[in-house]
């Protein structure tokens, strides 16, 4: 029978062996009987001659070579029985591990998906972006791109725009989807195949005859067409223009912007047709004419493919770019400005991981998170270690007994290791399940939009193996220590009667190790608590910044009139109808229109000249611009410092007016009353200041307050507003859907992206801080919880071990409260030592956090003190139950029990 056969046919083999040996004995017996012995004597002698049947059977079984497998099977079954019998211990260990590992795996999966994972295209390491050192201009005009590509024929280049929101008409109602304009060789450069139909080629971006074609993503094909072939060749209405779907990109391809999903791609030549007007810097050019052929409009990002090393390529591109810059500044004679332009350099940045805004804002936060989660794992492993050590000691008598009846030391060690590894594996599996749920949940927290960012996060084998590796290592390491200790031959002393009062084997080593472990746990959870409270306070500080606007009472309905295809002439009527519809809703005080928004910032800046203002020589006197409807400032709850709000007087027929903010007033009209004064772009008499308002955190909670000029939108008919602001009289919970419905009734062709409070928008500008504060709080809590568990377990165990001692004390007259105090004192000592240790560690580590904090220093003494107090209190609570149990020990039963 083969070895494998022998493994699985153990029963049959055992039966045969039995039969064989019996045959032997009975044959001898028959022989003896036939030579004259009595049946009983024959049997006795036959058996005696044969020797011990069982040992022979054991040896025969050993000879099979399958012994170790059945041993391991036996060990595992035994381990499972022991774990079931000690449910509390098992639950504590499994829970600690599950939490520690699950959290780690979840955070790592998000980090991997966002920061580390490479694009799912051919040879991603060959991809690079062409950027410039002057970061604001990493966009190129189409002619400039063609010139660069021509200068370096050895590499391949393509251009693209960042994903933008576009309005698709689906079944009569408008939906917003991300789309991207790309050059004809985009898909072939990336090496993305088609899932159906065909993808773009060089014919599709012919500037002379723009092709109204589009490629859709596989996810969009699935959700809107059910992957039907009929989708190819059908038409899509994007931004009010009909385009024909010519193909579907391969499954899983969502563009190269990590964290954003692109549903539709169109050729760059469709820019005018699709009304694409975003992200462009213009220089002596006409934005209303098609952009593709204009060298004065820089609106495209350039991506290239070439194998490393790219030094020579960089030199060639550098040379060509320099030529382009020289041509652009040909009519600038100011030497310092020329120098500024000429300092611009080309950079070739790695694009193998795609591009991502999310990544840049979140990278530091995620790193901090990874650190914290690693600490939680540390606490969990320390817990496991302590529990294993405690369990080991409890079984010292059991092992002493087994040693004395002949168990081999190696066998015992192997069994203990099997137990701890089994426990570790169960914990690891639980942790894995937790991370399967946890990673998407974490991702939802991370995303700044209302739906989760579409990151690719498959269950990674790296995580699995790392997780299991850590668990098994922990199990082995912390199972080995008690295993070695317990299987020493001297353990047999434990069997002696005296062992009841004095614990054999508990000299020097064991209690100290447990105490050190627990103190370390407390120290680590102290670190977690300090970190968490620093971040929570940072976020709170940020959220309490006065942004200058009434955050909770004002709702913002966001849409895009340009995408909806509105003509400029229809805008004033639209705005009026929207305001009217909103103001008619119950619970609404007033409504108004705005272009950009009070916290989300705007990149629109211009240089001005102001009455009686002389700018210093080297300065560009710029302001930011916002366009708003009537009664804007009162609707948003902004403080009017001087002058008035906009109203119906400020229309196209009247004099051009503006309201400025305090920052602009201080800069351009220092010491004067700005109301009534003038400024303009070329002439100081263009615009009259009619009011001054308090500063608002226009560029986000952390951004600098800009100098801002507000213009009435009625006087700027070419501005396509994007926001309807509604001031609520009271509760705002029912308003969002009411507002959405009202807008839809007024204008069904206008897609409303969302309706949110200003508060929510403000929070989004600090989404990274919000994320960090929530998660560090969660992990801090987790760490403390696990450490508390560990502390409880150790103290409870220590009390259980000392039952006899406690019994003696009580019997001799000690009061229950003194026993309680004895236990609590032990607990508090551990907690305080741990807290101090943790505080000492926190001081140098805090330095790394200072850039992430706002409004407080990492060494904030109040935080440290409060965290220490929390940790010590939790420690005291952990010891409370064992202390109470200790005082309730019945002296007689304690002394009598074994």
């Amino acid at each position, binding site marked *: 029978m083969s*070895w494998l056969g*022998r493994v699985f046919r153990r029963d049959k083999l055992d039966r*045969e*062996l039995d*039969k*064989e*040996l019996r*045959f*032997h004995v*009975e*044959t*001898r017996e028959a022989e003896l009987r036939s030579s004259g012995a009595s049946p009983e004597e024959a049997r006795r002698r036959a058996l005696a*001659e*044969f*020797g*011990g049947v069982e*040992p*022979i059977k054991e*040896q*025969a079984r*050993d*000879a*099979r*070579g399958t012994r170790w497998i059945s041993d391991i099977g036996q060990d595992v079954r035994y381990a499972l029985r022991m774990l079931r019998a000690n449910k509390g211990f098992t639950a504590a260990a499994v829970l600690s591990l599950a939490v520690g590992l699950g959290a780690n795996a979840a955070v790592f999966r998000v980090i991997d998906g966002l920061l580390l994972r490479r694009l799912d295209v051919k040879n991603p390491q060959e991809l690079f972006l062409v950027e410039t050192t002057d970061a604001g201009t990493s966009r190129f005009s189409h002619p400039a791109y063609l010139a660069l590509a021509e200068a370096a024929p050895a590499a391949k280049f393509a251009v693209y725009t960042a994903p933008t929101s576009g309005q698709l008409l689906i079944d009569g109602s408008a939906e917003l989807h991300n789309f991207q304009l790309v050059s004809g060789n985009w898909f072939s450069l990336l090496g993305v195949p088609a899932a159906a139909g065909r993808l773009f080629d060089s014919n599709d971006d012919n500037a002379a005859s723009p092709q109204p074609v589009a490629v859709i993503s596989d996810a969009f094909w699935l959700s809107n067409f059910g992957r039907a072939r009929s989708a190819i060749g059908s038409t899509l209405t994007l931004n009010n223009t009909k385009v024909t779907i010519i193909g579907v990109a391969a499954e899983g391809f969502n563009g190269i912007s990590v964290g954003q999903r692109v549903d539709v791609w169109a050729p760059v030549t469709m820019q005018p047709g699709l009304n694409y007007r975003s992200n462009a810097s213009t220089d002596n050019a006409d934005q209303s004419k098609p952009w593709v052929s204009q060298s004065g409009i820089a609106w495209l990002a350039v991506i290239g493919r070439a194998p490393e090393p790219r030094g020579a390529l960089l030199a060639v591109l550098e040379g060509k770019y320099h030529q382009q810059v020289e041509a652009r500044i040909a009519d600038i004679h100011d030497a310092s400005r020329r120098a500024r332009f000429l300092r611009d350099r080309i950079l070739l940045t790695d694009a193998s991981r795609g591009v991502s805004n999310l990544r840049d804002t979140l990278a530091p936060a995620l790193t901090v998170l990874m650190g914290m989660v690693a600490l939680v794992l540390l606490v969990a492993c320390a817990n496991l270690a302590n529990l294993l050590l405690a369990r080991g000691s409890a079984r010292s008598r059991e092992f002493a007994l087994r040693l004395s009846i002949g168990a081999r030391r190696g066998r015992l060690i192997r069994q203990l290791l099997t137990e701890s590894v089994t426990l570790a594996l169960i914990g690891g599996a639980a942790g894995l399940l937790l991370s399967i749920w946890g990673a998407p949940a974490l991702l939802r927290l991370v995303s700044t939009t209302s739906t989760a960012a579409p990151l690719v996060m498959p269950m990674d084998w790296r995580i699995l193996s790392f997780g299991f590796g850590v668990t098994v290592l922990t199990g082995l390491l912390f199972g080995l220590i008690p295993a070695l200790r317990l299987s020493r031959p001297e353990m047999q002393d434990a069997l002696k009667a005296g062992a009841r009062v004095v614990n054999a084997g508990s000299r020097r080593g064991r209690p100290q190790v447990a105490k050190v472990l627990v103190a370390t746990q407390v120290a680590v959870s102290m670190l977690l608590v300090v970190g968490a409270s620093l971040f929570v306070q940072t976020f709170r500080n940020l959220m309490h910044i006065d942004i200058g606007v009434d955050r909770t009472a004002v709702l913002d309905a966001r849409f895009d009139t340009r995408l909806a295809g509105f003509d400029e002439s229809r805008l004033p009527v639209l705005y009026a109808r929207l305001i009217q519809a909103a103001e008619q809703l119950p619970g609404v005080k007033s409504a108004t229109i705005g272009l950009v928004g009070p916290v989300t910032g705007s990149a629109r800046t211009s240089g001005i000249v102001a009455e009686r203002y002389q700018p210093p020589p080297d300065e560009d006197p710029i302001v930011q611009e916002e366009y708003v409807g009537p009664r804007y400032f009162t609707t948003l709850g902004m403080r009017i410092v001087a002058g008035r709000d906009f109203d119906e007087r400020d229309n196209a027929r009247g004099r051009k007016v503006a309201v400025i903010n305090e920052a602009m007033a201080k800069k351009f009209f220092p010491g004067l009353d700005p109301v009534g004064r003038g400024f303009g772009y070329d002439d100081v008499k263009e615009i009259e200041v009619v009011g001054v308002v308090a500063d608002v955190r226009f560029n986000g909670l952390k951004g600098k307050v800009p100098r801002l000029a507000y213009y009435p939108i009625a006087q700027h008919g070419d501005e396509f507003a994007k926001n309807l602001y509604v001031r609520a009289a009271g509760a705002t919970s029912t308003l969002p859907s009411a507002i959405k419905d009202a807008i839809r009734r007024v204008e069904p062709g206008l897609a409303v992206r969302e309706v949110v409070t200003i508060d929510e928008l403000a929070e989004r500008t600090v989404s990274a801080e919000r994320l960090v504060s929530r998660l560090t709080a969660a992990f801090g809590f987790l760490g403390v919880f696990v450490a508390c568990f560990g502390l409880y377990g150790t103290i409870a165990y220590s009390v259980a071990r000392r039952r006899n001692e406690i019994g003696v004390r009580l019997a001799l007259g000690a009061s229950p409260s003194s026993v309680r105090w004895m236990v609590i004192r032990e607990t508090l000592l551990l907690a305080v030592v741990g807290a101090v240790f943790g505080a000492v560690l926190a001081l140098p580590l805090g330095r790394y956090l200072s850039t992430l904090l706002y409004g407080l220093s990492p060494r904030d003494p109040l935080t440290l003190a409060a965290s220490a107090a929390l940790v010590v209190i939790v420690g005291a609570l952990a010891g409370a139950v064992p202390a109470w149990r200790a005082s309730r020990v019945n002296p007689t039963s304690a002394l009598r029990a074994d």
Partner: protein
Amino acid sequence: MAPKPTDLLQGTLDLLILKTVSLEPLHGYAIAARINATSKALLQVPQGSLYPALHRLENKGWLAAEWDETSTGREAKFYKLTRAGRQQLEHELADWKRLTDGIALILGGAEEPSRS
């Protein structure tokens, strides 16, 4: 006084079993009896070693086992030599000859080299 039966080393026991079985298939009891008889009671197989050895040889593939009826009608497990076992037997015989020749030379050459 009859000399005490010599204790056999494990390797030697394997050799004896293989040799005994090479003539005809036998069951365990018969193998022990045959060794005892053929060696004129000089060698006694310790019963504790017999069956472990048989099983070990079977697992190594040198013996093949089959359940069969004995002459008395009872069922017993018969062992026979496999081809690999036959080769192993020759190796071990050759080793044994070398060993005993060498020992004989050292001890003074008075003994006859053992008959193979």
